[in-house]
């Protein structure tokens, strides 16, 4: 234990989780980073078409927000949702296969980067419509309450979505019915090129929780322990039947909004400043400082994730394209109830 800590002063993550759990969390953060770097590289090489929205720099928010969730708990995700998929336990090979448009992908190549869903892990899907997942998350929470499953839904959305009507309707109804849902706003400061200062009347998005009579808290979204502490408390509150909460993780995307972004709305200095606050080495440092891992362990984890990504890309590249004969398959579910 480093100097200056007494037992009660230990960071939340160290107090709340055992070494294996913390190691797995760090591994997931590396997986997200390297998955997205691998996706970006594959895009540049022409292996992936369309566009993609990278969350590099936001990995702590995704992983720490899912710490208290089991596979029975649900998430709804966003266009910037790769991290959420990994945090909820997705297989990297099937994710890459989806990006590559292959039949082995999570959605058989029908969805792509913005629509990965994995109901077996409780992932109800990323969403191409800003704010689209907010009412859906509240509906999943209503289902859980009605059916008595005990499941909690974590609803990820960005700062842009907080100005959609769907946000306000969803928070209001979740509060009126005390539904087991946690609204996790990943405030990365810009909706495409428009800053929150220019788009949003309140200083902190969490202030909007007050309008819907629920707790709202703003945390450093690059601080794994701070995010886990806030979201875990909100999940516990939801599970206990005390209703929804809003947690705002203030973070930053290192890359542009999407592949079309020329980054003219922010300064090099601002980007460099946030890159110096990289959440992954910060979390690794926390674990080393508290004796959970050694520097050599961290290096091993990073190296192992690189191999996982290489294998995942190879799996995707070697997989077959969807059969053209199946283009109209799954427009409707043919099964009778």
């Amino acid at each position, binding site marked *: 234990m480093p100097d200056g800590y007494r037992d009660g002063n230990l960071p939340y993550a160290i107090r709340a989780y055992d070494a294996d759990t913390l190691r797995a969390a760090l591994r997931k953060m590396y997986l997200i980073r390297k998955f997205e770097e691998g996706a970006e590289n594959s895009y540049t090489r022409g292996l992936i078409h369309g566009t993609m929205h990278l969350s590099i720099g936001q990995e702590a928010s995704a992983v720490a927000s899912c710490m208290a969730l089991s596979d029975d708990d*649900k998430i*709804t995700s966003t266009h910037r949702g790769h991290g959420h998929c990994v945090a909820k336990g997705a297989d990297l090979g099937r994710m890459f296969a989806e990006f590559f448009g292959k039949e082995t*992908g*999570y*959605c*058989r*190549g*029908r*969805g792509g980067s913005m*629509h990965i*869903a*994995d*109901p077996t892990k409780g992932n*109800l*899907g990323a*969403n*191409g*419509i800003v704010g*689209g997942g*907010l*009412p*859906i*998350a*509240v*509906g*999943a*929470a*209503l*289902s*859980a309450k*009605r*059916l008595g*499953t005990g*499941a909690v*839904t974590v609803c990820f959305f960005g700062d842009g979505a907080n100005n959609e*009507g*769907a946000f306000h*309707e*969803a928070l*209001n*109804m979740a509060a*009126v019915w005390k539904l087991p849902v946690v609204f996790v706003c990943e405030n990365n400061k810009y909706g495409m090129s428009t800053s929150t200062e220019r788009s949003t009347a309140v200083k902190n998005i969490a202030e909007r929780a007050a309008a819907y009579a629920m707790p709202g808290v703003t945390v450093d979204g690059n601080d794994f322990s701070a995010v886990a502490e806030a979201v875990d408390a909100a999940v516990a509150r939801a599970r206990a039947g005390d209703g929804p909460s809003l947690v705002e993780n203030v973070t930053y995307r290192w890359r542009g909004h999407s592949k079309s972004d020329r980054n003219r709305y922010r300064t090099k200095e601002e980007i460099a400043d946030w890159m110096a606050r990289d959440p992954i080495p910060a979390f690794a440092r926390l674990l080393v400082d508290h004796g959970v891992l050694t520097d050599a362990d961290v290096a091993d984890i990073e190296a192992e994730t690189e191999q996982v990504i290489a294998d995942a890309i190879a799996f995707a590249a070697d997989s077959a394209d969807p059969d053209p004969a199946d283009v109209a*398959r*799954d*427009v*409707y*579910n043919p*099964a*009778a*109830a």
Partner: protein
Amino acid sequence: MREITLSKAVNEAIAEEMRRDPNVFLIGEDVAEAGTPFKVLAGLVDEFGTERVIDTPISEPGFVGMAVGAALTGSRPIVDLMFGDFIFLVMDQLCNQAAKACYMSGGKLNVPMVLRTNLGATRRSAAQHSQSLHALVAHIPGLKVAMPSSAYEAKGLMKTAIRDNNPVVIFEDKLMYQDKAPVPEEEFLITFGKANIKREGTDITLIATSSMVQVAEKAADLLAKDGISAEVIDPRTIVPLDEETILNSVRKTSRAIVIDEGHQSYGITGEIASRITEKAFYHLDAPVLRMGAMDVPVPFSPALEDLTVPTPEGVADRARAAVRGELFHAA
């Protein structure tokens, strides 16, 4: 056979399915205590309680989205949208979310949800409470669209919709809620995509949806007085559409008029007429005619509103012209 109102038929269908399957619930504005402005759902809250008949705030996109989320996670919600005109408010959740979830997930996600709403003008409700907007949702792959033409269809189609594993939108004509029709006491379902030949005939086929089926039947009565034999077909669902029954009829009669209360331009009438022209062209003795609502916002004044929707007399006039070969001269 007993006769009940369309309103009662919908109520019975929902009650029966809620008794049969505890995962079915109702959600919408003023569905519980009020039982909707048309009282269609009256009494359901007494039997099923406010846990299963849920009054919402006035947040149409929000509660339709909630129904999508509930349907993705084991529930089978019936969403009540008070007026069909409000469908414009819920287009993202209906068309971007519900309609696409199954396909975009490669078949892993399902949205077994019913959205029940209404259509129909001549209620003196003006342009924002009178529209017939079923063509808008019929345009989107992934949604099914049912259009009951009587109490019998209203019950059978609703029960089928609730058991379907896809999002289904049901448009009831709000002027027909008090219309009675024979409805069996015993349970029955109506298969989607199977048209009903309401009346057989040999000279012209009248394909009509929802309340326009009554208009077509009255037109057929008028035509019979002139010795013209009209066949009347009710598709019952426009997605899926029973193309075969329509085409077989037109091959027999060689003439067709499609009648629907949506705006005539870019609507259901054009779609069905086009399919007939593509697939039965060489059987035709006259151009296939469309009769939809006039392309104007629905006016308030009775003196104007009644002009905007097809009438039995108007349909009979066009049918006579088609049968007598007069359409060629009109061009």
